[in-house]
């Protein structure tokens, strides 16, 4: 969940509509509410961008998340005791995460260069990130070649209460092309190779402790190295006949643990009168499970007491590594107070469903997401 929110933070920063050489102020409030009193996250974002001299600009994004609720701990729901039917859930009291991202950019006719430093702090997870991006502009800015390197350097509290390291370097290469005044396309390839403590200390596997007549939850064991490839493509087109913009995005990822996923998204944006705009989107995601995923009760083996993430065996019952599908439908309304001042409100509905025929459907959450935003360029 934490990695999801760090990525969301970066996505918010990278993909929001930015001015070029302008000052800007943006704020957002988001609530993620899973059904059945599962996870609840409240997030506050604030971002400021300031244009300096000679093409330089700086940005600062701050965020506070507060999250609480219940997450599956690995015990199959049907194995919960009758006296405690929610035994398969870990109840988490409120945790607060604070994060900040600082970006310094230089924009010229021929290129743009940016350096980012990010920091994220919560009681059991501390993260620092560094990123360098270079974009070369060609053909009067209609062709842009992007490249980037980022490093995420984390300290995670493991199952024994010790802080251990993990890091995630990423290389990326992309291209954006304006085909005509109404159409643009973009492609991006990235390669990440995280290493270190990659298991989740809150996720366990169910183990039959026979001859001791109990089912115990032992710590999961994920490999301490991983390789991830991501392909991203996007096409945007303005449809003059209905005065609306449409975007289609496709993303594919796979890693060396057999985990892979496809994402397909359609978004339409239309202005409505002088002051209103609305956008709707539909997103579909399907995932194929990691080779070491197994939600079923396993027999006790001695290596489970001191798992070895380098040599294995590997095992996890984290449903986020399973085969599943999700769909998201979104609606967002924007109101232009002035040309350069916008407020918006959005609602997303998120559905998930397991697809392996083994994992209990109860572990897959559905959620409502509410967002309020404000943007001012000056």
């Amino acid at each position, binding site marked *: 969940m934490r990695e999801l929110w760090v990525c969301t933070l970066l996505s918010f920063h990278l993909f929001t509509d930015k001015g070029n050489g302008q000052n800007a102020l943006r704020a957002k409030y988001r609530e993620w509410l899973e059904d059945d009193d599962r996870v609840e996250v409240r997030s506050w974002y604030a971002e400021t961008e300031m244009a300096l001299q000679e093409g330089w600009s700086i940005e600062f994004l701050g965020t506070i998340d507060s999250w609480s609720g219940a997450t599956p701990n690995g015990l199959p729901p049907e194995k919960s*005791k009758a006296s405690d039917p929610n035994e398969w859930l870990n109840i988490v009291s409120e945790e607060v995460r604070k994060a900040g991202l600082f970006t310094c950019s230089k924009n010229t006719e021929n290129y743009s260069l940016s350096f980012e430093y990010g920091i994220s702090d919560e009681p059991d997870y501390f993260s620092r990130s560094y990123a360098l991006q270079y974009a070369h502009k060609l053909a009067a800015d209609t062709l842009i070649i992007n490249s980037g390197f980022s490093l995420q350097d984390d300290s995670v509290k493991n199952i024994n209460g010790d802080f251990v390291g993990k890091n995630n370097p990423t290389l990326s290469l992309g291209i954006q092309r304006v085909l005509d005044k109404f159409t643009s396309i973009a492609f991006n390839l990235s390669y990440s190779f995280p290493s270190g403590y990659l298991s989740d200390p809150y996720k366990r596997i169910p183990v039959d*402790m026979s*001859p*001791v*007549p109990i089912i115990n939850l032992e710590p999961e064991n994920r490999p301490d190295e991983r390789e991830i490839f991501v392909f991203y493509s996007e096409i945007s087109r303005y449809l003059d006949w209905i005065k609306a913009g449409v975007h289609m995005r496709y993303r594919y990822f796979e890693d060396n643990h057999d985990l892979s996923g496809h994402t397909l998204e359609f978004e339409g944006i239309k202005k409505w009168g002088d002051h209103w705009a609305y956008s709707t989107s539909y997103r579909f995601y399907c995932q194929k499970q990691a080779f070491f995923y197994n939600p079923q009760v396993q027999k006790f083996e*001695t290596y489970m007491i001191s798992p070895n993430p380098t040599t294995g065996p590997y095992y996890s019952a984290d449903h986020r590594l399973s085969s599943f599908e999700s769909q998201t439908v979104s609606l967002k309304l924007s109101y232009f107070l002035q040309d350069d001042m916008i407020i918006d409100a959005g609602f997303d509905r998120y559905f998930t469903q397991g697809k392996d025929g083994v994992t209990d459907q109860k572990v897959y959450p559905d959620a409502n997401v509410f967002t309020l935003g404000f943007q001012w360029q000056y």
Partner: protein
Amino acid sequence: MAVLGENTKPYSLRKDEQCAQLCFQAFGTNCSLLLPYSENQNLDFISEQVVLWVNNFEQRYSRYLENSWVTKVNLSAGKNEVSITTEDYEVLRAATFTFFQSKQAVDPSCLPLTQLWQKAKAIKSVPNENQILEARNLVNWEWVEFTKTKIFLAQPGMGLDFGGFGKELAVDKVAELLKNQGYQRFLINFGGDIFASGEADKNEAWRVGIEKPNEEGQPAYVLKLKNHALASSGNYRKFFDMSKKRYGHTLDPRTGYPTIHSDLSASIISPSCLKSGILSTTCLLSGIEAGMRMIEAEWDTEGCIQSVNSSCTSNRFYDYVIYEKSA
């Protein structure tokens, strides 16, 4: 008082107003079983079954008995294999679980060290370093070779001693026996190793006390238990003094010496008495800080580690507490 046979133990079955209480001696301590009344009970039959099972368990796995299976295995160390039954294999798997769950702090092959320190107590002389090293070199559960049908102790002088976990395993197995016979509500207490199943009375969990170190009979905490076990380890009563030094009775096979934490007691709640027992002994051998971290890392496990002047409890220990003695 009833007696099952020549080689079995006598027991008593008392019928109070609300429940029946079975009492007998085993594992060198007082053992009892509380059974609230319900329909279709045959108290005499189940009492016999429990006492017979415990008796058979002791006869087979006690290292003190000349004709036990464990003694036969120990005498065959370094010489020949001994055949095992399905039940023996289960006990050996429980021993393996004990060794690894305790991170080698409880070693079921620790007989050479146990015997060395028992002799030292008897002659009131601390063993020298060479003697301890010699005994330690014969202690390693990973050298015990067993399959589903045979067991072999690789070196002469090696020996099995299930005293570190046998009683707690017996609690779990008797609980399983009772449940298989249709009993859902009972309290087993083998010398302070406890399993509470179901409720004592309508909507009332079983109440169990944890003693305060050095205050015999005074509960530091009273807990409500339902479908959970409680096991405690402590050296504040069982210790010995030798050469002006106090030694706890719990032996650490990793060092070859009795624990230095002689003033601590550890009490663990978990779904299994074996697991509670292993963790309580390991906490005692590891000290308060390492012990608490161990408890917090386990699922559905809570505990407290007490010294004479202080008490540390895990995060959700107080979910079980209904009374606490004020300081």
